[in-house]
């Protein structure tokens, strides 16, 4: 496959960026999107040019490190992560636009790499349980009804990649935050901090400069793990309950 790539190049956080055009040849349809970028980078290095910086780690769709808005879609045209997107999703001779996540709360560090530490701070605000758990406890010590376990797992699938923020017209982090809140709030282990968790995490989300939710639904469409839009509804419900209940 021969492709034309238009890639966002930005020297550093303070520099202005532009879309630069590159031609890549000899791309196999079985390559992942990241392998295709590796091929481009090898050519750039040989030519003595600066390779394109992009985030990646596990390359098996579970770590949440890879990002990229491909032809206007976070993680590209398939419902998966960029590392699991294969070049067979494109046609020979295609022109592909590759851009970083765009949100004020995710500033570009270089090229396609953005700073997602805002997510870490949201987790630090309450995305954990405070009970000292020690070693892994006996699985049957705390009974969890199957539907609750399934619901918690559905939310726990969130890998924190930030595609929801990238896709949201308001740069909102509601889907990420709601997935992390619901994951713990439906489980008995998360119950003691049920109210403070939702209040603190939403407060941190606002402090980080993310936008608000207008229920456009772009986040759930982009999410490689299929976190449902209803996750946000559940978070709103938890938030209203907590705001009324928490002692002042």
């Amino acid at each position, binding site marked *: 496959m021969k492709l034309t790539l*238009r890639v*966002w190049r930005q020297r550093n956080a303070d520099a202005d960026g532009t*879309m630069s055009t590159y031609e890549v040849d000899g791309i196999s349809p079985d390559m992942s999107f990241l392998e295709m970028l590796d091929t481009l980078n090898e050519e750039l290095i040989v030519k003595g040019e600066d390779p394109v910086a992009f985030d990646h780690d596990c390359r098996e769709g579970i770590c949440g490190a890879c990002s990229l*808005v491909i*032809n*206007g*879609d976070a993680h590209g045209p398939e419902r998966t992560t960029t590392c699991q997107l294969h070049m067979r999703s494109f046609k020979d001779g295609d022109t592909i*636009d590759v*851009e970083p996540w*765009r*949100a*004020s*709360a995710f500033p570009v560090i270089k090229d396609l790499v953005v700073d997602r530490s805002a997510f870490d701070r949201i987790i630090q605000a*309450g995305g954990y349980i*405070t*009970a*000292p758990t020690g070693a892994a406890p006996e699985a049957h010590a705390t009974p969890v009804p199957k539907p609750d376990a399934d619901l918690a797992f559905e939310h726990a699938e969130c890998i924190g990649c930030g595609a929801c923020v990238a896709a*949201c*017209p*308001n*740069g*909102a982090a509601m889907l990420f935050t709601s997935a992390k809140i619901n994951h713990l709030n439906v489980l008995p282990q998360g119950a003691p*901090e049920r109210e*403070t968790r939702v*209040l*603190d995490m*939403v*407060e941190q*989300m*606002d402090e980080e*400069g*993310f*936008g*608000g*939710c*207008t*229920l*456009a*639904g*772009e986040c759930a469409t982009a999410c490689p793990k299929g976190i*449902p*839009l*209803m996750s*946000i*509804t*559940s*978070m*709103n*419900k*938890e*938030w*209203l*309950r907590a*705001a*009324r209940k*928490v*002692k*002042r």
Partner: protein
Amino acid sequence: MSWTDQLCVRSVLCMALATRTDRRPSFARTVWDSTVGKKTVMAVSGLIMLLYLVVHMIGNLKIFFGAGEFDHYAHWLRTVGEPFMHYEWTLWLVRVVLVAAVVAHAVSAYQLSRRDIRARPGKYAHRKARASYATRTMRWGGIILGLFIVWHILDLTTGTVHPGFRHGHPYRNVVDTFSTWYGNVVYIVAMLALGLHVRHGFWSAAQTLGVGSRTRDRALKTLANVLALLLTVGFIAVPVAVMTGVVS
């Protein structure tokens, strides 16, 4: 950060205590300062206005039963609740609630929109038309409706912009307004905007208030569409009837 928090940051053992211990602000403060809370204000004020619109639309349809019934109904609106309420007290009570709802809705929308735009300053080079038309036109639709309300009150309540307005003769005034081309255009455009606004707004309010769920989603979407259609058709029926001579 308080001194206890600072101590805790240095000690892993202290993790369990690293939750917030400061006093939380009041319920009203929490709601107004949060994006989730401000959306709640929009949802509640929106539902108040929606309820009023349904009543208003049904009231309007009395025009099809002649000037006598319509004018009598208009007069009754001033005597509702008598003898407990004095003349026009109920009407003014409704007006006060509605003005409060409009102001709360508009101020929240303005502040949330400002925040959303700040959160997503850069546009993607590769742009796609995404969310539904109703979702994308919420802000402009809201502005159109706000301007319409001002015109509508000046036209048919105070008569300020209505040449030949006669107090106490609403039937005559309505026919008068819809005998001008601009009266019809302004009204019909605004009512179409209303339909779109309600279509996304009603369903969104349900999600914001946390009453949406997977099992209720279809019902809520249908109800939103039915409400939007009924309101638009019900309101537009009046100018169409005047234009076609059914009401004169």
